[in-house]
């Protein structure tokens, strides 16, 4: 077992890659009562075109299948796994994102039993045509619930605008129609391809003894047999740099119009240290341009173009990414134009210097230290970083190295007019009134 000490942060991380390929990380937290564990596969909604394990030809699977599979993992021949966790005093859950499916629990006792339940239920699939059919009604209600949420529609609307071919443009849960095509056989194909231990990470954080826990996990894994690890072949379509749709409006009943400006980054194949540096530098640049101390924010607030819903975010994964800026606003066109104008100005003349960077750097370091109080943040983020070849605990040292030129370089990849798109939601009745 490897032990890495992060003295500045007062944390020690234990790590081992098991024989079957599973990466296990353990982070003890002093003074904590609870233990939080995530068992995550590098498999999300975008992985819909791949060569199934043991086969030669690539297949395409119905939209929403990774999320459907996540739901069905909880049902076993002997019953529902939630029941087992509840008996052991653990709150369990799971989520599916574009790139990951995570199963998790938090508990303040019976940690070994709960770790065993977590490992066993994810490593013992049980799908039948009957249980798959039964789930369709539940997931259809989940999809319908999201369909009624304008903020969710806004988020997916802008991503769909930006991407022409990449499967990130497909809603994670699929559609009520697409999930009707899912069969138990599909689920087994996806499971066998993506749930091999070599494609997964187990992270345990909290009130835990690292030596005992690692031994316990190894014994569990040694009892099971797995096929050899194999490289997974995933197929992604060519994606142009320009956005698919420049502007689109959705009519939906809302209190106030909503608008997002999205920017698609250039160079979406970064991984490891390069990715970490770009991501942090781009985040700092957007914070300076659009954060609460920016000229833009001050101006937009004074003019009443933005309200408390205002947000901006930069997100990058292997193969896709986006910056998103927007708000509920009575003047969506003006706000979108102003955001684009702010970007154009920064491209023309870079407005930030050393003092700006130093202030934002301090802010980011503080945010990171605050986040380290949260076992959930550590486990989820560490896993995301690992899948992209980065280390979460490199954030502070990398931040300390970043220079003004890095911000400018990162921003230059996420700023061209052809990479920008606008998505707006307005009430149908309100539009008529105008």
């Amino acid at each position, binding site marked *: 077992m490897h032990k890495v000490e992060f003295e500045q942060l007062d944390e020690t991380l234990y790590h081992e890659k098991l024989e079957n390929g599973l990466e296990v990380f353990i982070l003890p937290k002093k003074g904590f009562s609870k233990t939080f564990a995530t068992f995550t596969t590098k498999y999300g909604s975008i992985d819909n075109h791949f060569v199934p394990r043991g086969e030669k030809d690539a297949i395409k699977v119905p939209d929403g299948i990774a999320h459907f599979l996540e739901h069905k993992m909880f049902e076993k021949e002997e019953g529902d796994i939630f029941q087992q966790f509840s008996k052991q005093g653990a709150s369990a859950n799971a989520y599916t994102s574009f790139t990951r499916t995570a199963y998790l629990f938090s508990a303040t006792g019976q940690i070994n039993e709960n770790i065993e339940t977590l490992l066993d239920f994810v490593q013992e699939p049980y799908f039948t045509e009957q249980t798959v059919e039964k789930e369709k009604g539940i997931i259809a209600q989940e999809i319908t619930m999201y369909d009624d949420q304008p903020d969710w529609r806004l988020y997916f609307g802008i991503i769909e605008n930006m991407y022409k071919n990449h499967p990130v443009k497909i809603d994670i849960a699929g559609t009520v129609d697409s999930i009707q095509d899912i069969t138990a056989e599909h689920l087994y194909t996806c499971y066998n391809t993506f749930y091999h231990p070599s494609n997964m990470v187990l992270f345990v954080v909290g009130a835990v003894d690292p030596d005992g826990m690692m031994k316990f996990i190894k014994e569990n894994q040694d009892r099971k047999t797995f096929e050899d690890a194999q490289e997974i072949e995933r197929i992604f379509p060519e994606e142009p740099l320009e956005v698919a749709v420049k502007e689109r409006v959705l009519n939906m009943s809302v209190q106030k119009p909503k608008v997002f400006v999205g920017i698609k980054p250039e160079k979406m194949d970064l991984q490891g240290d390069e990715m970490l540096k770009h991501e942090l530098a781009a985040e700092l640049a957007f914070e300076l341009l659009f954060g609460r101390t920016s000229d833009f924010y001050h101006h937009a607030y004074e003019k009443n173009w933005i309200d408390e819903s205002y947000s901006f975010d930069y997100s990058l994964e292997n193969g896709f990414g986006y910056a998103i800026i927007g708000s509920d606003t009575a003047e969506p066109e003006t706000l979108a134009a102003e955001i684009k104008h702010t970007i154009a100005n920064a491209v023309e003349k870079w407005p930030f210097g050393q003092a700006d960077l130093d*202030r934002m750097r301090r802010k980011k370091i503080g945010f990171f230290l605050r986040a380290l109080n949260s076992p959930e943040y550590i486990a989820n983020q560490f896993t995301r970083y690992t899948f992209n070849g980065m280390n979460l605990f490199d954030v502070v040292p990398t931040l300390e190295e970043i220079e003004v030129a890095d911000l400018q370089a990162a921003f230059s990849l996420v700023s061209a007019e052809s990479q920008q798109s606008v998505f707006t939601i307005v009430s149908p009745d309100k539009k008529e009134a105008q």
Partner: protein
Amino acid sequence: MFETIRLAKGVNVHVNETTQFKTINISIKFKDKLSKEKASARSILANVLQHSNEAYPSHTALRMVLDDLYGTSLYMDSSKRGNEHIVSLNVETVNDQYLSEEGVLEKVLNLMYLVLFKPNTEHGLFKESIFLREKNAVKERIESIFDDKTRYAQQRMMDLALPEHPASIPANGSIEAVEKITNEKLMEEYRTMIESNEVEIYAVGDVKPDMIADYIRDYFHFTDREKPVAAPSMELKKPAQQRVAEFEDMKQGKLHMAFFSPVTFRDEKFPVMQLLNGVFGGYAHSKLFVNIREKESMAYYVSSSYSSQFGLMFVLAGIDGKLEEKAVKLILEQLEEVKKGNITDVEFGQTKALLTNQLTEALDSARGQIDIYDQYMELTEDFEPDYLISRWNKITKEDIADAAKQLSLEMTYFLSGKESEIDA
């Protein structure tokens, strides 16, 4: 957990000195009686005070100094509990042990002082432009509930079931009440808050209780104050209507049900209600989830919650717009099972295990410690998890059945798509 130091009558400092966290959390809570007018005024006040102050007269200037203090978070919020309205000033700052700089905590305390005592004023009133802007922000915050159909349906049901009752008054008040607030009224409300509200101050982190208490005593100068005498009544009165259906442009049907219970937070039987809620609908092992979601595949979410301050139990479900009747029938059948005492050992044990886990786990965050301690202060001087755990362990299935028998369904509210669209 917390050490309490009294600064004046009605003003206390509670400190939990611990190295569990990398940050220091401080909250100052101002408590007043709840009304729509107070809630609206105090929500605007929270926004105005966190916007800027005499020393940092613009939003940008205040936010810049926070960035410089290693991204210290500082915000005010407006909340309610029972018939009390609470305005909190919350900060979280990095323990400077992890930084190359010292004295961060003093700077943060000074900033809290400026936010509360040196507001941004002109001619004895709040700066008019900021007042108007923040008044509008609170109004829009209330309006935006419409975009979240679950919250909207719950608010509609409460307005219809218990109008003007503390249970239905939102923490931000109402649009009408916000519109009536003038700058003069807001200033009056501000003085009341600072001079006569009860104040509870919390600090969690690697700090000395005396240091925090001394600083606040020396700089904040809080004077003696009394608990408000005439708090609004929380008595539950039968709603005028038992069933209401409303329509909006939407796809899913939102079913909300409200039950009355004679048992509230102040009642000895309060922990029984927590167990009842867990067995009935609080968790993924509960009767509602297992039967309505898993067996019937009718819903993605279906759950119950217990609002202990008022003695209210709610059931919420997202279902197909055509299935209201069936869902209500199935939900009431599950409640019947609880009333009959048909509770398995497994359901009973799981519920106690999860309640215990939830409580212990909440104490692993500084905010959780503050919220729980502040809530239970009324019942016990030094709250420890065992205060509840030992009570849960003494409860029997019969106790739960008895508590269920006392529930009365008072309102069924259903929000769904326009009728014509359902038929289409």
